[in-house]
């Protein structure tokens, strides 16, 4: 961690408020960022973090208050002004164009010209230099963005920000798409930047990251600063208290145990190099975790089980009956449910009402002589949403309007409506704030207690260690370890995820 010097702050935010018709999204926010500091921004969904970012980056105009960059007031509502003053933002949904090369993307919008024509050689050179500065010389400036992995795309985004003079870099949940290895690399990059005096605002839901990378923390709740600039080594429980406004006793509910028969059996499932010879069992009442690095094959395995992709070998049995491969409809009929990794682009129809989203997988139930009954649909959907504490639980709302955590509940509601036997959840708490996370954990354990079998894929090993009955670790397409939940720790799971001592699948009980 770099030592922040006590000179004029790079960014000062004083008394900001932002009024939307009917809603006061920001209501008195104060904090500052010093040069060379990593300042973390915490807060539950709806607290106003993204609105605040938009104010600083100029995408949105303030209703009250002022923002100072390097001591000078920032003209509000002008993104170009913010950019000029050196404020750059890396969004969660990266602002890159897939069909351009790395060099083109880095200079998109501020290309370098020479005698009226694009100076491609120079842009290429500077891109290479930037990538080196970010410790990623391996990314080729001529590679197409679409061919890069998400972590690499993120680096390109950062390089893009750096290609113009930057004083303040805002990073919105950068670790959401990364695995642990890549997060370490990212932190290295961030530290380098701070060494050059750049200030960084780092937004994340992952409390464990704060002390690792941050210098100070500001906590937002309901549009105002609850705590401004407190040290980053403040205990997580205190941070959660500040965010949620009350003591949160326990993150994880009681660990579920197997209660019944085998509901899902996977035997020798294989698909090219992505999934190799995967076999495991899930009993009713269990929550099985699938951990590993990005690219280990966890999502691919779930997709094979559910039938979204065709396996080259192997079979899946649900309650003892063989499932025809490659047909999601058959999987659903057999009692499987699948909540995909990207709930916005794969899970929900964002422009549809909640009711229609919830009933989509089970429309047969609402038919009377071939005609649907919308009222019955709405009632059933509302009931499910209420059970999951969804806010708002108005089934006529449009899915797009809900926060990440609530959207996830809508996806879960869909499968609960169908009374599944086995639930496959891919990154269920990604992009979800702490309060909602705890709720989702409770839902999962309640479901297990009710007799479902649940398989959870997650990149947060700590999450798996706290939640699951058993954790399977994957590496390079194989299941390389099975660890009993009570004995699992983030560390030993990570050990299995990265080490290459044992290529063959291993059943291991850690003492």
């Amino acid at each position, binding site marked *: 961690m770099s030592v922040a010097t006590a000179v004029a702050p790079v960014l000062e935010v004083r008394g900001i408020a932002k009024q*939307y*018709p009917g*809603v006061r999204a920001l209501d008195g926010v104060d904090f500052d960022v010093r040069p060379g500091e990593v300042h973390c921004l915490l807060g539950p969904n709806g*607290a106003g973090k993204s609105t605040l970012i938009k104010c600083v980056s100029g995408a949105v105009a303030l209703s009250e208050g002022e923002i100072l960059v390097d001591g000078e007031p920032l003209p509000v509502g002008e993104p170009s002004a913010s950019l000029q003053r050196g404020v750059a933002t890396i969004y969660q949904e990266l602002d890159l164009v897939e069909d351009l090369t790395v060099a083109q993307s880095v200079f998109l919008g501020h290309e370098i010209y020479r005698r009226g024509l694009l100076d491609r050689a120079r842009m290429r050179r500077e891109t290479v230099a930037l990538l080196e500065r970010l410790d990623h010389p391996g990314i080729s400036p001529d590679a197409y963005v679409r061919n890069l992995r998400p972590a690499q795309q993120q680096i390109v985004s950062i390089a893009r920000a750096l290609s113009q003079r930057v004083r303040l870099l805002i990073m919105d949940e950068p670790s959401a798409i990364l695995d642990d290895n890549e997060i370490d690399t990212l932190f290295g990059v961030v530290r380098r930047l701070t060494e050059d005096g750049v200030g960084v605002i780092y937004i994340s839901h992952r409390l464990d990251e704060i002390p690792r990378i941050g210098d100070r923390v500001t906590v937002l709740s309901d549009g105002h600063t609850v705590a401004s600039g407190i040290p980053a080594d403040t205990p997580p429980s205190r941070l959660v208290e500040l965010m949620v406004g009350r003591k949160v006793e326990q993150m994880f509910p009681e660990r579920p145990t197997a209660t019944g028969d085998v509901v899902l059996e996977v035997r020798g499932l294989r698909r090219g190099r992505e999934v190799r010879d995967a076999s495991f069992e899930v009993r009713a009442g269990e929550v099985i975790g699938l951990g590993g690095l990005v690219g280990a094959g966890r999502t691919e395995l779930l997709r094979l089980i559910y039938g979204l992709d065709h396996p080259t070998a192997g079979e899946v049995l649900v309650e003892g009956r063989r499932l025809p491969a490659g047909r999601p409809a058959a999987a659903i009929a057999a009692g499987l449910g699948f909540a995909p990794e990207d709930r916005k*682009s794969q899970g929900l129809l964002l422009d549809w*009402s909640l009711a*229609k989203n919830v009933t989509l997988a089970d429309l047969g139930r609402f038919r009377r002589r071939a*005609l649907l009954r919308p009222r019955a649909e709405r009632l059933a959907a509302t009931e499910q949403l209420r059970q999951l504490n969804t806010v708002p639980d108005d089934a006529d709302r449009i899915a797009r309007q809900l926060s990440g955590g609530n959207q996830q509940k809508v996806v879960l509601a869909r499968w609960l409506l169908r009374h599944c036997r086995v639930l496959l959840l891919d990154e269920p708490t990604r992009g979800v704030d702490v309060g909602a996370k705890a709720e989702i954990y409770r839902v999962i354990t309640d479901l297990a207690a009710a007799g479902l079998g649940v398989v959870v894929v997650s990149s947060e090993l700590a999450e798996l260690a706290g939640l699951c009955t058993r954790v399977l670790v994957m590496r390079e397409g194989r299941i390389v370890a099975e660890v009993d939940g009570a004995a699992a720790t983030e560390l030993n799971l990570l050990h299995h995820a990265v080490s290459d001592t044992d290529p063959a699948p291993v059943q291991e009980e850690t003492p």
Partner: protein
Amino acid sequence: MTTVPPEAAPSRRSLPFGLSASRIELQEYTLALVVVLLVIVGAVLEPDDFLNSDNMLNVLRQASVVGVLAIGMTFVIATGGIDLSVGSMVAAAAVAGGQVADSGSLAFLLGAIGMGVLLGGVNAGMIAYGRVVPFIATLAMFTMARGIALWLSDKTPVSIFQLEAVRWFGNGEVIGVPSAIIVFVAVTIVAWVLLNRTRYGRHVVAVGGNREAARIAGVKVQRIVFSVYVLSGICVAIAAILVSGRLASASPVIGNLYELDAIAAVVIGGTALSGGRATIVGTFLGVLTFALIFNLLTLMDLPTEIQQITKGVIILAAVLIQRRER
């Protein structure tokens, strides 16, 4: 990334008179208003000829042919696809019927339906299983169907003056209402029920809304995509029967640019070109709008340029209204 707090953007807007409407309903109301406006304008500009039952039935009857096509097109567009070939396919279906016209009316009907389903099936196969982009596949069919029509008919129209049953479809009446209108309205009602009140219809719109999400939710995407183009083919056949009946001839040169009229009607009706949002009522009103404009401008004997400009302006306006609602 955090989202705007839920209260900021309600799903229903409040209108005067205590009504409320979702986005698509707003489009339908607006269009209904436009239709009423056109009727009023017509009554004022052409008091003797416009607003009488004879002319109104005339307008509806003319709207029937493109109307049936537009209904089929609504399903196609709801899945995010498009069908540029319906006009040429009408000619091909009519010609197919004409070739077997010697064997009587039933033969004609079967011939037209058969060709419509066949060509629709070819489109469906190319798009659903051959993974050809709908624009390209139907563009190819656009020229192929016209070629088939010209080839089968040897470039000459076949008179079907003697086929009373077929002519009845185009020109007959049931208690004073032209049978073409009855067919159009019947097709509209069936389509409405299918789209809004059946599982099939829900699946169709799901495919257009988010194909991957639909697939994950168990929708058989390929089958749905296949089916909508076959549906379009059936609508083509119906349209071909209506127009041939009225012309008393199976001609290979008809159907020119019908697809653009159908698509325009669907678009101003409020169905999203990108899929995921569809309205049969909107399409019906859209068809009516264009038919009224054509009728009024012809009654006033205005040059066709005026008609074309008016159509274009209305399409633009409709799209802008849709955009604002987003």
